[in-house]
């Protein structure tokens, strides 16, 4: 069970308090109707799924309830950092 630093609670809390939210920084287009099918597919389905550094969203669903972003190594599962939603990509 991972230990995850919640940037809002500013505490390390156990993974089972959190819900994984998929890859981070995939913003919903302001006006989806302007996207062609390929661009829309990219938004909906294409993911980087890297071996190594991964930007991802977590929600402290059984804690403060907030979504936040994290950088985690997908090979070691170790977190490099976590930061609040809305803050620039690290």
């Amino acid at each position, binding site marked *: *069970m*991972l230990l995850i630093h919640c940037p809002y609670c500013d505490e390390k809390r156990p*993974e*089972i308090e959190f*819900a*994984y939210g*998929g*890859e981070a920084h995939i913003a919903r287009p302001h006006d989806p109707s302007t996207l062609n*099918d*390929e661009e*829309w*597919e*990219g938004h*909906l*389905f*294409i*993911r*980087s*799924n*890297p*071996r190594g550094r*991964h930007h*991802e969203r977590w929600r402290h669903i059984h804690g403060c309830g907030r979504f936040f972003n994290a950088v*985690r190594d*997908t*090979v*070691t*599962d170790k977190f490099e950092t976590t930061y609040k939603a809305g803050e620039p990509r690290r």
Partner: protein
Amino acid sequence: MTRFNAFNLFAKALGGHKSWPEQWPDARPKPFYDAIIVGGGGHGLGAAYYLAKKYGIRNVAVIEKGWLGGGNTGRNTTIIRSNYLYDESAHLYDHAVKLWDGLSQELNYNTMYSKRGVMMLAHNVHDVQSFKRHIHANRLNGVDNEWLTPEEAKAYCPPLSIDPGARYPVLGAALQRRGGTARHDTVAWGYARAAAALGVDIIQNCAVTGIRRGPSGAIEGVETERGFIAAPKVGVSAAGNSSVIMQMAGLQFPLESYPLQALVSEPIKPVFPCVVMSNTVHAYMSQSDKGELVIGAGTDQYVSYSQRGALHIIEHTVAAICEIFPIFRRMRMLRSWGGVVDVTPDRSPILGKTPVPGLYVNCGWGTGGFKATPGAADLLAYTIARDEPHPINAPFNLDRFRNGRLIDEAAAAAVAH
């Protein structure tokens, strides 16, 4: 190739088993192949075998970064079934099940395909509706799948608890009698041996580091730890690592890789005659030829390549098993392990051509790849040989994520209302 049979076993025994040859030689890469398969699991080795056997392309290499069958082939719970809902899926998996039957003889390698029957438990009215729908669709697709009452389910699998007072009572079950299990390692080894006998080069401990494309964008070959290997056709069958390989060719894929755990108990005398799956309670189990209870656990929630799962997943899985089969509470977990499963948005595989000429892909099998091994291998070989998908795998293309023609078995199982 020395035939495997009782006579040779006997003869070689008298000679102290000294004269058994290598099952497959450890090949040194040639500069050029007509086709390269990336990934030495059952799917990849099988594709190489069928290329050589059925489609007349023998100058083939299988390139594996580790050891054969070291990925999900050797890490799964070996469940085989084809009672899927949609025509596309049913045809795909049934193609595989038909090939499983007789695979031992075809490869001259006992893959121990055991038609023990796969029983899926219904725990609520919604499950019942969903399974009945499967059964009706399967019947009209010529796929065997039948409804069992709780009593019939109990008779088929005596350790099953059908206590109506259970938290998740068993309301019935869907049974596919042709479903079952096989010995996972032997599938990889059997294909490797048979493919090698047909001239396929099997290259282990050789990671692919890049995919080379020509000016036209078409495939020219692969860069590896042992240098460049040229080939006009490259088939990628790399399971959890598919995204990484595809990015080498400049392709972004609709895939995410998750940790999946499984575990076995200590071996006991035969007690569990079939495979039982419960999607509602999240547990599936069978008993191996060796006597171990083989149990599949759930995936962890986050993307990972660590092959390292969490304890709470094991806790939930084992608790679920003990609810459905309470006589096993005193059994002990002997071994647990993790694999990396590549999952697509509709949880169905991607099997066919890619936007890159000469590059073919077989990925996205999620937790269900083993059962499809011979079918996926054959269809990948067909697609590579003909440069066009077989009608069976045509629907499992990449375009569906653009045009919306998804094949979403999980969604069809739907949510409790």
